[in-house]
C-alpha cells in the first residue's frame, strides 16, 4: 500500500453509508501524546527531532496497529502529495507546511492516521463515516493502549496527558463531527447554531479544521475542553446532546423548505445538477456549492438517479491535488477548472 494507491478511491469515511449520513459526513477523534522525559517538539533540536521521528516510526510499525499500514515521510514528499494528504484529512495543514523531520502513518482503510512530530510528538486519529463516535473512541483507546506498551507518555497526576499547548492537556482528546447543514444555511438559521455551539464550549470550523472558516454548507463541530472531563463524558456530550440537536434542527429546516418552498427548492437542486452535468469549466468553490445542493436533493429524495456515494467521492476527487494526481500531471488554475468540469461530467 502506498500513497499513489489512494488517489483512485475515497477513504472509508466517504462511503456515505454511516449512521445519520444525511447530515453527518464523518466522525473523527484524535489523541495528543508526548514522550515522557523529552522536550516538546518545538524545543527539540533538529537532531533530536530526527531521532524522535525514527523511533516513533519504528515503534508504530512494531506495534502492528493495523493491516497494510504505510508511512509517508512528509519532509521528503512533494507538495502535491502533501496537499493530497490534507485533502483526505490524513494530516493537518500545519503538518503539510512545516519544515522539520516529520511523517504520518496511515492504515490502508484510512480510518487510522498517526502524525509524527506535529505540534505534539504523536497525534493519533481515527476517522469514520457518518456518526460513529463510540466505535471511533473504542478503536482509538485500543490504539493508545497498544502504543503505550512500548512508549512512555508524559503524564501528570493533576493535569493528565501533557501537551505542548495547554488547550489540549488532560485527555488530549479532540472530537470533531463534520456536518452538512444546507437547509440551516439556506433558511438563515445557521448563526443560531454557531452561537449555541459556542455557548456549549464547542468550536465550529470549516471543512479543513483549524484556521479554516466555516464557509459553504459544511461545518466541523469540535470540543474545546479537554481537561476536567473523562473521555467518555466528552464523547457522550456529542453523541447524545450536541450532534442530535443540530441534526434535528437541520432536518426540521429541510422539511419546512420542502413543504413551503417545494418548487423553489426543486429548482435549485436540479439547476445545480444540470450545471454540474453541462459546464465546461468549474472552480473548486462552485463545485462545492453545487455538489452540496445535489447532496441535499439526494438526501430528501428529490434526485433519484445519483448515488450519495458518488457525490461524496466527487467532493474529494475534484479537489486540486486529487485532480492533478488522477490526471497524472500538474495543471494551472484554468486547466484545472476545465479538467474538473470534465471529470464531473463523466461521473454524473
Amino acid at each position: 500500500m502506498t500513497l499513489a494507491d489512494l488517489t483512485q478511491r475515497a477513504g472509508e469515511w466517504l462511503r456515505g453509508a454511516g449512521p445519520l449520513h444525511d447530515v453527518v459526513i464523518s466522525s473523527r477523534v484524535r489523541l495528543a501524546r508526548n514522550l515522557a522525559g523529552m522536550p516538546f517538539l518545538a524545543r527539540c533540536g533538529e537532531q533530536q527531532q530526527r531521532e524522535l521521528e525514527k523511533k516513533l516510526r519504528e515503534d508504530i510499525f512494531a506495534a502492528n496497529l493495523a493491516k497494510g499500514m504505510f508511512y509517508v515521510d512528509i519532509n521528503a514528499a512533494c507538495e502535491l502529495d502533501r496537499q493530497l494528504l490534507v485533502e483526505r484529512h490524513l494530516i493537518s495543514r500545519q503538518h503539510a507546511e512545516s519544515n522539520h523531520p516529520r511523517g504520518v502513518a496511515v492504515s490502508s482503510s484510512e480510518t487510522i492516521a498517526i502524525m509524527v512530530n506535529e505540534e505534539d510528538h504523536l497525534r493519533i486519529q481515527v476517522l469514520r463515516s457518518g456518526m460513529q463516535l463510540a466505535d471511533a473512541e473504542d478503536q482509538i483507546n485500543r490504539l493508545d493502549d497498544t502504543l503505550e506498551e512500548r512508549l512512555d507518555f508524559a503524564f501528570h497526576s493533576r493535569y493528565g496527558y501533557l501537551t505542548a499547548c495547554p488547550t489540549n492537556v488532560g485527555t488530549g482528546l479532540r472530537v470533531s463531527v463534520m456536518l452538512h447543514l444546507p437547509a440551516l444555511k439556506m433558511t438563515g438559521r445557521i448563526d443560531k447554531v454557531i452561537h449555541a455551539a459556542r455557548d456549549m464550549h464547542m468550536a465550529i470550523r470549516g471543512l479543513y479544521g483549524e484556521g479554516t472558516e466555516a464557509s459553504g454548507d459544511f461545518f466541523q463541530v469540535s470540543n474545546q475542553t479537554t481537561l476536567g472531563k473523562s473521555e467518555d463524558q466528552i464523547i457522550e456530550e456529542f453523541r447524545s446532546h450536541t450532534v442530535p440537536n443540530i441534526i434535528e434542527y437541520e432536518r426540521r429546516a429541510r422539511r419546512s423548505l420542502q413543504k413551503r418552498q417545494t418548487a423553489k427548492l426543486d429548482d435549485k437542486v436540479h439547476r445545480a445538477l444540470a450545471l454540474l452535468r453541462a459546464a465546461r469549466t468549474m472552480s473548486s468553490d462552485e463545485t462545492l456549492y453545487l455538489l452540496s445542493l445535489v447532496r441535499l436533493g439526494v438526501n430528501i429524495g428529490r434526485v433519484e438517479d445519483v448515488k450519495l456515494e458518488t457525490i461524496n467521492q466527487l467532493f474529494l476527487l475534484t479537489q486540486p491535488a486529487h485532480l492533478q494526481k488522477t490526471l497524472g500531471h500538474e495543471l494551472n488554475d484554468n486547466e484545472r477548472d476545465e479538467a474538473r468540469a470534465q471529470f464531473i461530467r463523466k461521473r454524473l
Partner: protein
Amino acid sequence: MKSKCDNCDRPATVYLTEITDGQKIEKHLCEKCAAAEGITIQANVPISQLLQDFILQSSESGEETLSMSCEICGMRFSEFIEKKLLGCPHDYDAFETALVGLLEREHEGASQHMGKVPHRAGSDQKKQNAMLRLRAQLTGAIAVEDYERAAALRDQIRELQKL
C-alpha cells in the same frame, strides 16, 4: 449620540460611560484624546497580548510571573505567552502558579484531569525530569561539538531508560 469629540473638533469614535460614586459621566472622545486619557482602543489585539494582559491583571506579581523560567528546558513564561507552546513537560510544574488560571479559563473552570490514566502510570516525575535534564545537556554538548561528553550523556540516558 454626539458626533464630535468633547475635547477637540475631530469626530468622536470612543463613547465612554463612567460611573463614579453613583454618578454617571458620559464622554465622547476621538481616538487621540481617548489615548491621552489612557484609553486605548485596538481593533485587532493579538491573542498573545490578551493573555499577557490577563496574566498581568490576575496576579499582583504579574511582571515576575512573565519572567519565570523553567530550570530544565530554559523556556521563559513570556516566551510561552508569545508562542502559545510550552517547552517541556516540566513547564506544567515550573509555571504552575500562572498556568492554573489559564487552564481554568480554557477548560470550563477545570484544572484536574478526570480521564484515562496510562496503565504504566508513566515513570515517576523525578525520573522524567532527570531525563529531560540529561537530554538538554546532550543538546548543549552536541551544539559545542563536545562529542566525548555527548557520548557519556547518551550512556547515562540509556541507563536511566532501563530503570
